């Protein structure tokens, strides 16, 4: 006896999660391939560290594996759920590594229209982003780099949309200030 069920893209998340809870390896593989890039990129963009991004990715999916019942399709997509977990993991790892490095005053950053990549392959603007306080770094990464809209970013950060807008505006101001050489005339 076979019943045909057509699953739309919006219900894929619920079906995937249910199949994973039952031990379906294919569903697990599909889920990982679907979301790993996004989670990894978020971790890298927040820290500039491939190893931190790798660890955050692993911890995020392990959290889902351990507690799959915590995902509620009625509250949001699986991608948003995983991103929220990843955010907490990244913040914990940054705190543990004390990854916040304030840009020293007076240092000139040559961020021009052409690509400016240091020996580590990181752009100057990424270094500037990683030097921002965490609340501002998050909105820059989510909105400007991950290209989430304000509502999605607000959901990921668990804050109002207005807070996302104001933090983004302030974050951009801070980046521009640090892009300008603060050198004595």
């Amino acid at each position: 006896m076979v019943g045909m069920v057509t699953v739309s893209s919006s219900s894929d998340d619920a079906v995937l999660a249910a199949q994973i809870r039952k031990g379906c390896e294919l569903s697990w593989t599909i889920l990982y391939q679907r979301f790993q890039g996004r989670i990894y990129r978020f971790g890298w963009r927040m820290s500039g560290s491939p190893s931190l991004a790798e660890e955050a990715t692993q911890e995020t999916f392990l959290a889902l594996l351990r507690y799959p019942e915590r995902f509620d399709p009625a509250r949001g997509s699986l991608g948003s759920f995983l991103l929220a977990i990843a955010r907490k993991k990244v913040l914990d790892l940054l705190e543990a590594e004390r990854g916040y490095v304030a840009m020293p005053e007076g240092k000139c950053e040559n961020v021009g229209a052409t690509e400016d990549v240091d020996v580590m392959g990181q752009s100057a603007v990424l270094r500037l982003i990683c030097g921002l306080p965490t609340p501002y770094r998050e909105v820059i990464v989510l909105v400007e780099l991950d290209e989430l809209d304000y509502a999605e970013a607000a959901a990921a950060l668990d804050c109002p949309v207005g807070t996302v807008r104001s933090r983004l505006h302030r974050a951009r101001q801070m980046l521009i200030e640090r892009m300008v050489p603060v050198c004595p005339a």
Partner: protein
Amino acid sequence: MSGMTPDPEKEQMLSEQLALLAKRSGVMEAPARVEAELLQAFRHKHARRAVWPYWLGTAAAVVATIFFVGQPKDMMPPAVELPPVIAAVPRDVPVVPPVAPVVPRVVRTALRSAPAQPREIATDFFAMRTGPLVDPGELSSLVRMSVPRSTMSQFGLPVDWANADAAIRADVLIGQDGVARAIRFVR
């Protein structure tokens, strides 16, 4: 600092740099070892002992063999191959332990009562476990899903790696225990 007037030129420069960073980092993915370790953790969590007595499994295999061999060929669904794809430069495929069974078994008859929708072309079903797909009297479901095209490589189908992340529809046979038994790809 709070009194700074906005500078359109600097805003534009920042926007360009952010867009460039987004584009350059947009292709980044987690290393293959992460997938392998997570898959190992998944299997460890869901490891289960075989509950089938040996003799019952053997009997089921005999019945399945008689069933498959006894079907007239003209009642079998047409074996449709996906059109050949031009193999682009293959991307690095994660080294993942093969999903059992290692050699996918093509099922031609067990699911002939569940044809693909009209005007659809589908591959045969590929078994995802050894033994019979559906036990006698067992309820099962056919679920349509969207999966990455790269999934087809696990079943020996050619994949255009330049387009591997694009979605393709798949019908997955789910047993009463919620475990996937077979899959076919649909176009």
